[in-house]
């Protein structure tokens, strides 16, 4: 078999080329008639009000924060999962402690309403 990383690299190039060709094809194939109404962004038929590039909610940021911490935790569970049978019961207990501490964090996030939408 071939080197798997080479496949990943070659394939990424191919996929990116596929994407770029598809996106640039309209320049060749499609008509181009920019008109006033067509160029306006869509807002259910009414005239656009306000600039959308300046508004957001802090909730998104909190979600991403919680995600990063929990993602790191889950990634530490992968090496444990690989050796967990050899590590035996002691290893299992150790990881249970790890999980318990992280669940504390998760419960805290719930409590301070970092997981709410509003």
């Amino acid at each position, binding site marked *: 078999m071939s080197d798997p990383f080479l496949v990943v690299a070659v394939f990424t190039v191919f*996929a990116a080329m596929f994407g770029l060709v598809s996106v640039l094809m309209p320049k060749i194939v499609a008509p181009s008639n920019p008109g006033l109404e067509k160029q306006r962004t869509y807002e259910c038929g009414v005239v656009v009000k306000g600039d959308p590039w300046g508004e957001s909610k802090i909730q998104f940021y909190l979600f991403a924060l919680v995600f990063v911490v929990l993602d790191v935790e889950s990634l530490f569970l992968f090496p444990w999962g690989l050796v967990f049978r050899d590590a035996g019961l002691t290893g299992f207990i150790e990881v249970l402690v790890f999980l318990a501490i992280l669940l504390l964090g998760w419960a805290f996030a719930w409590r301070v309403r970092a997981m709410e939408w509003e």
Partner: protein
Amino acid sequence: MGENFFISLKSQLADIALAWLPASWQPMISAILVSCAVMAFAPLTMMFLTWFERKAVGRFQDRYGPNRVGPFGIFQPLADGVKMAQKEDIIPEGADRLLHHLAPALVVVPAFLMFIFVPFGRDMVAADLDTGLLFFLAASGLSAPLIISGGWAPRNKFSVLGGLRAAAQMLAYAIPMALSVVAVVMATGSLSISAVVEAQARLGYWYVLTPWGAFAFVIFFLCTVAEAKRTPFDMPEAESELVAGFHTEYSGLKFAMFFMAEFTGSYAACMFAASLFLGGWIGPEFLPSWLILQVKAMALFFVMVWFRGTIPRFRTDQLLALAWKFLFPMSVLVLVATGAWYFLRMDSGIAAIIWPFLSLTLAWWGLSVVLAHEFIRANRPRRADNAG
């Protein structure tokens, strides 16, 4: 078409190429052939899947679905592709032109990448990495920033909001997905997907048939449906809520790119789930291994389409609460149960299966009750003095 049809085809093509190239090019030739194969597979699959979905959803809705373009409408996706290719590319004024071109072009890359880590059949992995599982999860998470950029590039409120919400949803469901995969890693002792399939072959049963495997599979499947932003998790694309969400301002092939990323991503996840939990290419001897995997993956995809035709859309806060408050603790409990199951020793008979199954079911119900309480609390009528 026998078992080794594709393998022998590839080696024949490689021999032809190597006849007039130096031998040191062999890995490159092999990589190119394999990449071409997968690159051909992905869009063709997507075309077939869109046809399949439209027919199936049509039948769910008591109508025929496309049936004019070719027998049973099989050429409909081709017609759609041609139509989209010649549509005018409209970029709203004030939009970020570079991102408007770049985001849809790049968003298919992670979706296609997911295919090369999955074993298509016996000895048919495009990139047989020792940590293939992790790379698959990494590829599926890579599209989140691209979708935000895609939503933000056209200067449209709904688009931006759709992109942010879509990414929030993908992040939320990525964690239970990773954790349920850890359960499989615990059982197999390897991060390589082909090792997982071979372990199921050796053990003689599919992982889904174990108590922890069943729960892990359900959690994983729900998470992949959510990651692909399919109904009932398609709030980011919902027409009544956000127009078309983050792909509102993209016309023609750019829209098709987003769409393609969603479909191929969900099918790759179906193949992945089939490999991890349903035994992959293991099956009856008279069928080629690659066909078996496709049958299983199509069965899972049919379930996804079934969801689409049946279940109404979830609200955003319901979506996110389901991920953070239910699936996440549930997946942690599944991990604990997996460990407990192995320490209880599988050969102690029925008890080793019943207890974890019962406890997990109990945990599922318990967490559902907690979640329901949350929703009731969140939805109680607001007091008059609260501006809401």
